[in-house]
């Protein structure tokens, strides 16, 4: 769908109306995954592997079955065989097949009449293991003699002779690299490593399943996509999609981490076996050990530059491990790495690798933050060594409309140059710095997504409107959807209520991911509203006894289109709704689409840090985010996305990491030792929203949810490297690591 008009005066879009979920959330009324209960409900609990890698020789559940209160026990034998390889992997992650592949991998589950009975029964399950050698580091896993996590999983793109842990290989780029590097005045090549980080959503996964012996089921769960849950669970349980109704609860954060299933198939299997509703709520420890963190990486980046800052050639090789199953995250990283640059010669190679770690799950702009961290670090070091202004160098090489991107497509309208210029003109960029302080910046990029979307818009008899959509609201989308409906219909925001449907109420909707919802659901809502408006025009024309062409929609009312249409008082939506039963019955509009035109997104982050040279501690002093939002429907929420991404990036850059011991076990499965930033660690995150309308959306909207987590890693690393006087190439930049680097610099 195309942009209506480049300049438009909105009445509601762009204002800061109250959020519809606010009062429920602050009063505790909002119903999250764990808040639903049912009569006769049982409590499910999952037995997890204490080993990093082991063959399951036997599982003896007899003692547990005999224990008081136990109603059902399930293992992988209770699951069906889905046709889809990806869903089979999800199944084998929900309950291990013949091997446990990582510390925390689920093996069996119990449903019992109380939590304590379930806990006691879990301890009575006897599992005999044959312990196998394990590998958790990406570079180690790529060595030809590394322990093999899963064999026979490599795609054809992987050359022969590599470790079987290497499952995928991708390559992107164009131009003559050799000539480009030969033409450079300065070449820098560095190797980087980044640790796996967790999405850190505050609400652990929770669900309540009720699957009868007749194969009909109800599932209530906390997810980013009820349709995805339905497809996965139906395939894993061997039932038809129509037999399973999935309702998404209010959600306490997702960030990509709730775009798959962990406990839902298990709860359904327990319910089917016991004939009772079964609830499972993960503990925080389970969340850390067994739900998706992001990838950990090892990366080489080489960039050549002329003395004036022109990049002549750029190359990156990315090695991403995504846990014990194949994943495609490295492909996004390889595509995104150089997206901000207009390059004559560029190549990115990516390797996807399996290790004995939990199955990776999307985390905001999956794959991009790490690749761009490596690229933007090398660009910054080149600027330092050639004594160039880092913003000028980005502007000189910036991708713009017409640029052949490093990953193939040619860019349309993009906001990168405007964003860089906004950063350059902002007082932050020239503010003085003190001793031990450094300023860093980075560009960021994300593709954004549209996807399958359905919306129904129902006109109520009092003239108010209900919008039914199928995407869990993880970033304020209900407010934005209501705003776009109200804008389109010309009625006040508070006359519209948007609800999220269960899987039987609408056609298929893609998951809430890819920053797609405000874009795609917004677009479908506008189209649904337009369909309703057309219907209202037709009804009024009928009532007035004139042609539909002779009426027009203006300011929320139907009016005669001109003097020839006759004298008729305008009819408001409320007027039309009140007599709908006399003009043909209820009025609704709906729209189903596989939306494209999402429009890529760029951002620039600017950060000042201070490093304590005696302890290696970093203080983030000042932080400004510049991002193109296309059109900020609800600026508070856009700013919230920008701030939240920056904060998660600060955690990733400075302290968050999955720490595995030599035994392959996760050492920090708690919020004490997995250090997300606390409020007092952060300055106010300033935001500057740019609005370069997206040509692919009627109001110019672009997704904003993912791009903000892309620049922080490099921006902070560049700031810390400048403050500490030494280039850092590994994340997180925890105080011991920084102090070690400073000590090495001093000792020469």
């Amino acid at each position: 769908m195309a942009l209506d008009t480049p300049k438009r005066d909105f009445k509601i879009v762009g204002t800061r109306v109250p959020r519809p979920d606010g009062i429920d959330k602050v009063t505790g009324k909002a119903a999250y995954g764990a808040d639903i209960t049912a009569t006769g409900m049982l409590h499910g609990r999952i037995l997890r592997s204490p080993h990093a890698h082991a063959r399951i020789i036997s599982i003896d559940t007899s003692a547990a079955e005999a224990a008081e209160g136990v109603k059902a026990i399930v293992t992988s034998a209770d699951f069906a065989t889905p046709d889809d390889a990806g869903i089979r992997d999800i199944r084998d992650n929900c309950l291990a097949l013949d091997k446990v592949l990582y510390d925390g991998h689920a093996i069996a589950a119990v449903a019992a009449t109380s939590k304590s009975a379930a806990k006691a029964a879990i301890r009575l399950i006897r599992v005999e293991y044959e312990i196998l050698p394990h590998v958790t580091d990406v570079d180690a896993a790529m060595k030809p003699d590394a322990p093999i996590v899963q064999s026979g999983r490599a795609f054809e793109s992987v050359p022969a002779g590599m470790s079987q842990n290497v499952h995928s290989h991708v390559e992107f780029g164009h131009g003559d690299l050799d000539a480009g590097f030969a033409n450079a005045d300065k070449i820098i090549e560095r190797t980087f490593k980044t640790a796996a980080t967790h999405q850190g959503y505050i609400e652990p996964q929770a669900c309540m399943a009720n699957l009868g012996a007749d194969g009909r089921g109800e599932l209530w769960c906390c997810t980013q996509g009820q349709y995805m849950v339905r497809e996965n669970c139906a395939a894993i349980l061997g039932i038809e999609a129509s037999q399973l109704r999935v309702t998404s609860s209010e959600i306490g954060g997702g960030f990509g981490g709730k775009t798959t299933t962990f406990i839902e198939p298990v709860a359904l299997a327990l319910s089917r076996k016991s004939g009772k509703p079964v609830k499972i709520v993960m503990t925080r420890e389970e969340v850390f050990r067994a739900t998706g963190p992001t990838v950990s990486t090892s990366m080489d980046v080489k960039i050549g530059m002329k003395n004036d800052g022109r990049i002549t050639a750029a190359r990156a090789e990315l090695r991403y491990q995504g846990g014990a199953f194949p994943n495609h995250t490295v492909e996004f990283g390889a595509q995104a790495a150089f997206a901000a640059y207009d390059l004559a010669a560029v190549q990115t190679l990516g390797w996807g690798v399996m290790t004995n770690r939990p199955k990776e799950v999307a985390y905001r702009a999956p794959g991009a933050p790490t690749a761009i961290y490596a690229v933007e670090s090398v660009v910054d070091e080149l600027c330092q060594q050639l004594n160039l202004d880092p913003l000028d160098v980005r502007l000189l090489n910036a991708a713009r409309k017409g640029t052949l991107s490093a990953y193939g497509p040619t860019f349309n309208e993009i906001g990168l140059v405007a964003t860089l210029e906004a950063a350059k003109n902002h007082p932050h960029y020239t503010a003085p710095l003190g001793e031990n302080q450094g300023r860093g910046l980075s560009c960021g990029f994300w593709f954004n997504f549209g996807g399958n979307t359905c919306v129904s818009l129902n006109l109520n008899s009092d003239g108010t409107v209900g919008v039914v959509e199928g995407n869990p609201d993880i970033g304020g989308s209900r407010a934005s959807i209501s705003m776009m409906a109200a804008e389109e219909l010309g009625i006040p925001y508070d006359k519209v209520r948007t609800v999220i449907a269960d899987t039987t109420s609408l056609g298929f909707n893609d998951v809430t991911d890819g920053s797609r919802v405000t874009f795609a659901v917004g677009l479908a809502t506008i189209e649904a509203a337009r369909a309703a408006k057309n219907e209202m025009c037709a009804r009024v024309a009928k009532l007035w006894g004139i042609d539909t062409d002779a009426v027009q929609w203006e300011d929320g009312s139907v009016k005669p289109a001109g003097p020839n249409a006759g004298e008729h008082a305008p009819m408001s939506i409320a007027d039309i709704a009140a007599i709908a039963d006399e003009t043909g019955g209820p009025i609704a509009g709906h729209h189903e689409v596989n939306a494209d035109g999402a429009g890529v997104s760029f951002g620039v982050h600017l950060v000042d840090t201070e490093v304590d040279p005696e302890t290696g501690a970093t203080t983030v002093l000042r932080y400004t985010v510049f991002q193109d939002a296309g059109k900020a429907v609800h600026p508070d929420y856009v700013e919230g996305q920008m701030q939240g991404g920056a904060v998660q990036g600060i955690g990733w850059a400075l302290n968050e990491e999955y720490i595995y011991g030599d035994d392959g076990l996760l050492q920090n499965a708690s919020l004490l030792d997995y250090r997300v930033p606390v409020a007092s660690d952060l300055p106010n995150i300033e935001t500057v929203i740019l609005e370069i309308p997206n040509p692919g959306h009627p109001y110019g909207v672009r997704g904003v949810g993912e791009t903000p987590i892309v620049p922080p890693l490099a921006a902070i690393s560049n700031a810390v490297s400048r403050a500490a006087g030494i280039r850092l190439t590994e994340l997180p930049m925890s105080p011991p690591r920084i102090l070690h680097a400073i000590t090495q610099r001093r000792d020469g």
Partner: protein
Amino acid sequence: MRYVKPDSFENAAQLLFDSTGITRILAGGTDVLVQMKAEMVEPDLLIDLKHLSGMREITHENGGFRIGAAVSGAELGEHAGVNALWPGVVEGMELIGSTQVQGRATMVGNLCNGSPAADSVPAMVTAGAIARIHGPDGARDIPVYEVPTGPGKTSLARGEFITSIYLPARPENASDAYLRFIPRTEMDIAVSSAAVSLELDSKGICTEAKVAIGAVAPTVRLVDDASAALIGTSLDDDAITKLVAAVEAACSPIDDKRGTIAFRTKTAGVLAKRAAKIAYARAGGTS
């Protein structure tokens, strides 16, 4: 699990003495309840003593203060007298947790939980604090320094518990300070820590000094060589260099997910130096 609220110290001691399983005392519960929830410990007997006489009181005694074992961090932090006399002790206690945790957490719980990284302990040790212990044989007093014996362990005998901590009086021109290193700014466990308590003469020369370090050994450590480095000086550069060397020499930390041996050792020295300078300034010294 049995939860009991005994009506006297005597009954409490008897209950504790008679119990054969795992026992825990419930003060603020910010360690005990968290450990129970995390399934790290499942006590057979949980004894609540908060309501017993004097447990929640701060009383002036011989120029110092007696602090009941159930006084929370928030209550201690609002006590002007203790703040004026032992600011380092108060700042150690107030670093614990968040506002919510402060409303419950106690110094005695922090001490008896036995963490080598306990934040209130080093400054109690440099203050020369005395723990009053009640047990089957009545009451006895021992220095706080002698309470922890290793991670999760104390010198308390079967049936014994602490009823109060006594912070002694001290002369003019004296003060203390506590600092810890954590990777974040709050809600974290000390990677290393240091408390310093100083007494100065009228010329600003240090006449008495105590230096204690935390999280760098199985228990809090008093570093006599560090005290010696400061006594007789006005914390000149040479004295500070010696202090740092003495502190580093006294460290025997572990390498773990929270910090390396080298990092803990280095930062303990840095913190001792910085805490000494703060205590010196608080005591009225100018250098």
